[in-house]
């Protein structure tokens, strides 16, 4: 449970970045925060997580918080697993190094992480934020730098996490639109307003019974169609080794690319 009430923040010589923000976030209803560059999303997330104090206003949050900052540092001196152990100990929760495996971390684990790739650093940051059953998870651009496979895994992880924890997330990749049951809000001119994704910018069509038009019909052939549908985050009809999908046309290319990466072969593509 997260309650942000009347939070104001401004930087010197500038207009207020946050001008009395109210935001509530509960388990089961993830909140996706949108906003333009420099609109103060990261500032709000820092305050919500407890990394910074607001000039005025109040924030109530659970005891154990997972926070992924924008640009998680790629140069930590400790090996990834040692870092995760320390952070878990500071939170007072068991360490969860298996999250590195799930996210497909491919960097060194027991050697100091002199300089990790952007993606691997992001995976360490995600593992430290999501591990240990936090009551609130605050993620600033969690998909930044992730490969397609890790991005899908993260989506599935977030769905699981948000069942038990309040989840507040920003995203520029459009993947957050596929978090089922999420509440979409937008930060503009220092205030947070409801911002339900319209059909035009719904790049997902996740589980949508009535796919917005124009739609594209896709038939994929793969070993385990149900697992692939889950990985792609779309609802589809499975017959034998085939997966029949209908997705918004704007989303079709990205989905095909993801499907090919997952080892599917494309049998048919056409207008629905």
């Amino acid at each position, binding site marked *: 449970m997260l309650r942000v009430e009347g939070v104001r923040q401004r930087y010197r010589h500038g207009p207020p970045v946050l001008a009395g923000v109210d935001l509530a976030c509960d388990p089961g209803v993830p909140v996706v925060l949108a906003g333009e560059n420099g609109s103060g999303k990261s500032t709000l997330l*820092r305050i919500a*997580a*407890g*990394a*910074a104090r607001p000039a005025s206003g109040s924030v109530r949050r659970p*005891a*154990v*918080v*997972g*926070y*992924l*900052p*924008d*640009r*998680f*540092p790629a*140069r*930590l*001196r*400790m090996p990834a697993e*040692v870092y995760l152990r*320390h*952070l878990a*100990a*500071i*939170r*007072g929760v068991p360490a969860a190094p298996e999250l590195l495996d799930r996210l497909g971390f491919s960097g060194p684990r027991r050697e*100091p992480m002199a300089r990790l790739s952007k993606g691997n650093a992001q995976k360490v*940051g995600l593992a*430290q934020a999501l591990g240990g059953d936090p009551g609130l998870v*605050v993620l600033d651009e969690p998909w930044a730098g992730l490969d397609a496979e890790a991005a899908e895994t993260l989506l599935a992880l977030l769905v699981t996490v948000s069942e038990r924890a309040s989840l507040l997330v920003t995203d520029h990749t459009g993947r957050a639109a596929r978090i089922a049951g999420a509440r979409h809000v937008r930060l503009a001119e220092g205030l947070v307003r409801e911002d339900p994704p319209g059909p035009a910018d719904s790049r997902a069509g996740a589980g949508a019974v009535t796919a917005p038009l124009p739609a594209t019909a896709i038939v994929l052939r793969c070993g385990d169609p149900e697992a692939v549908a889950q990985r792609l985050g779309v609802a589809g009809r499975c017959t034998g080794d085939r997966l029949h999908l209908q997705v918004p046309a704007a989303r079709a290319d990205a989905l095909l690319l993801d499907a090919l990466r997952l080892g599917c072969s494309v049998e048919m593509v056409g207008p629905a």
Partner: protein
Amino acid sequence: MTRTLAVARYLAADAWRSQRVLIPAALQLAVLAVLFGGDPGALPAPWGASVLALYPVAAWLALSLAQTEDPIQRSVTVVAAGGPGPVAAGTLLVAVAADLLLTVLSVAWPLVATPYGASPATVLLGLLAHLAAGLTGTAVGFACALLPRIGWSLAVGVIVVLVTAVQPWLPPVGAAISALETGSGSLLVPVALALALAVGATALLRRT
């Protein structure tokens, strides 16, 4: 408290890997080696010089400790610890542990390396004098860590240390050194004052 200890363990490990804290520690060892390498004379007077060295060394060490993490990494640690308080307290614990280590080394060195012995009361005087200088240095280092640029930190730190170390009447460090020169006097008050300064500077550190 367990969070503070966990933060302290993490910061100590991180600082050890960064190796920046090794430079001031090595400096103190170099001073001890030169000071007690020849014939320094009877104790406790020679400890005055090692106390004088420990003061800026402890300030440097505390400044390095407070700035080991980069700001984004620090924000993650603060969130994990549930606020800046445990992180500041953990930093203080590591700094005090380093002060204690250097204090014991500085006091023990001449007892081992030179023919001069010391009564338990003199040894206690030496320990307290080093501790007073170490804790005050920690306070100065933390206060300097609040300044926005390392150049300002350095300038302010050097001036504060130079001015306060050479006033024989001024507790904690000036008084500690003059007590060693006369070989008498109680240092409990300077040590208590130094501890209060270090704790006060830690409270300031929470605000960063």
